[in-house]
């Protein structure tokens, strides 16, 4: 009895647990968990492509349908200047990376919530779940590039040599996506209804990013701000520039956007790590 009564109501403040978050240690943890990441990645791929009726086609269908809809309806209602490039090609080149982003955010945003159970069994770095989700969505994106190849053949179009910049653009896109997914997936644990807001944000993003239209439609004096607010804009427009128009990326927009993306990643990682401490308390 006396043992219990002698304990104060709350711990002395100097005892308060402060979790030290070290980036280096987190990366080492992640490296140790690489096998788990790959297993999750492989499993979700296999689930998607083995069991689903149309298999790999599901990766191509969404951007393709979008492209058709845009080409048939939008292009007829308002004429969007494409610089002489067929509109299907013009839009599809932007739809592929956009689709990667939106599906990665949608799936990655809920990846923690749907895995809380797994996380309560044994220690695994929590970043594993958003990362493996992004990876499997990345594979989808790669597959949907096949659709682009078909369009190239149909329009007898040869990708321009500046296409070599694509990997750089892709890296920036991944950095931005990771940052956003870290923030969202951690927040959704605490605010479950954010899930519904997510699809809204994605829909807004579709119009707030130069997908249906080119960057040239944005007034020049607003472009920098536009790209800072939405770092994905110069990336998506960049794909179009390098693959279709044979131009180098617009460095004056891309570099600030890249810096912004890195900021998002750092911020996202910090938020994620901070919130992660309480994930298990809520499950």
């Amino acid at each position, binding site marked *: 009895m006396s043992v*219990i009564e002698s*304990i104060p109501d709350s711990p*002395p403040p100097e*005892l308060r*647990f402060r*979790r030290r978050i070290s980036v280096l240690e987190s990366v080492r943890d992640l490296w140790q968990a690489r096998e788990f990441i790959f297993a999750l990645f492989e499993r979700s791929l296999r689930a998607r492509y083995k069991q689903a009726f149309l298999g790999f086609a599901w990766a191509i269908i969404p951007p393709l349908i979008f492209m058709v809809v845009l080409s048939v309806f939008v292009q007829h209602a308002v004429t969007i200047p494409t610089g002489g490039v067929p509109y299907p090609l013009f839009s599809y080149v932007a739809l592929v990376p956009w689709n990667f982003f939106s599906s990665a955010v949608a799936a990655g945003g809920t990846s923690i919530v749907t895995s809380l159970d797994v996380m309560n*069994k*044994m220690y695994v770095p929590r970043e594993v779940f958003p990362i493996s989700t992004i990876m499997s969505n990345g594979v989808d994106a790669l597959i949907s590039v096949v659709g682009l190849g078909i369009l190239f053949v149909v329009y007898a179009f040869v990708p321009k040599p500046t296409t070599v910049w694509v990997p750089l653009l892709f890296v920036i896109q991944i950095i931005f996506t990771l940052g956003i997914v870290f923030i969202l997936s951690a927040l959704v644990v*605490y605010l479950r209804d954010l899930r519904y807001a997510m699809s809204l944000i994605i829909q807004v993003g579709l119009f707030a990013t130069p997908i249906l239209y080119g960057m040239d439609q944005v007034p020049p004096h607003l472009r920098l701000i536009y790209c800072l607010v939405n770092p994905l804009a110069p990336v998506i427009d960049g794909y179009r520039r390098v693959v279709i128009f044979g131009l180098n990326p617009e460095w004056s927009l891309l570099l600030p956007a890249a810096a912004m993306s890195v900021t998002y990643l750092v911020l996202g990682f910090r938020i994620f790590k901070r919130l992660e401490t309480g994930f298990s308390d*809520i499950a």
Partner: protein
Amino acid sequence: MRSGRIVADRVWKRFRADRRRTLLRDELERLRTQWNGEHRGWTWALRDVSFTAEPGDSIGIVGRNGSGKTTLLRLLAGVMYPYAGRVQLAGKLGTLINMSAGLHPDLTGQENIYIQGSLIGLKRKEIARRFDEIVGFAELEDAIRRQVKFYSTGMQLRLGFATAAFLDPDILLVDEVLAAGDAAFQQKCLERTRDKVMAGTTFIFVSHDLQSVEGMCREGMWLRDGVIAAAGPVRDAVAKYRDWVESYEAHYREKLRRVGEARIVKLDVTGPNGNGCRTEEPVEIRAIVESPEGREGTLFVGVSEGPSRPIFVLHHELSLHNGHIEARCRIPHLPLPRGRFYVWVGIFGKNGQDLLPWQPATEFDVSGPDLHPTPQGIVRLSPIQMTTAWDVGSR
């Protein structure tokens, strides 16, 4: 030499008192109440918990539901973080929490084994070397390439224990799970655990099954409302817990006194010459039963450590008639060790109908020697005490 060390230093953990939905609008509402200066409620799951474990230590944690046992285990497993204090572990960790065998239900048994191994830092080759042993122990040769979500509960348990115990952990954390397996597998697990502990693995075991805890662990810890109420040699800690549960449940047992047609007027247990009961000495149980009318039935008398599951049961045919009848039962040699025991009674008709529902009637104390100890890793079913005469010598 094993390196499994645990240091828990003044650990505190709290949860929101309002087990709430986590929605934005709830959060806004909470902000509002906080703004108005109202305190938002927290409940402490663990308060000022400190202990250490060295290689080869085995600690059993007991306590009622909600006393913080699983929370403590989760903190040790690194799944949760404390609110205050410090938890430090050294060595490779094997965990089996919530009988959730395997890490991920969507992955196959094989993948789970490899992943769990890689997560505790084993190389693929090292895991491969133990793989067959794990599968063999878990008896899952046919199912190991199937997804864990298609496993039966027993299969999951077997995989979980085998993975946790065979990946050569320095620390083994096990929660409540063994009770779910069949007896043969339980025994296998207990033996395996004992071997590991002998080899220096640090073992932490959470269970409601006090006999298992006593059998498996050298040290015990009783958590009561998140506080260590007793810690020390396992029999002492568990005995303190048992005593507390009994006193706590005494009033609850009163409520269990249900009415039937018949009624127990008086029931007492007396030792020789009306004194207290002693081990191996004669005891008399005397019951006076009242009945409104004539009935044929059987009187059952069970002796238990508290719960309704008795250590042994006595029975006798009974012809009830209007009024009181007295039944006496003499046990020439009481086979119980020192401790407090409870008498449960019930009277059942020919067709099994309750004339008097099974219920606790009284309690009695036995004085005498302590129960013979069991070797570590051996779980005794019932605390039956035998008087023995040994004769050991060379021949």
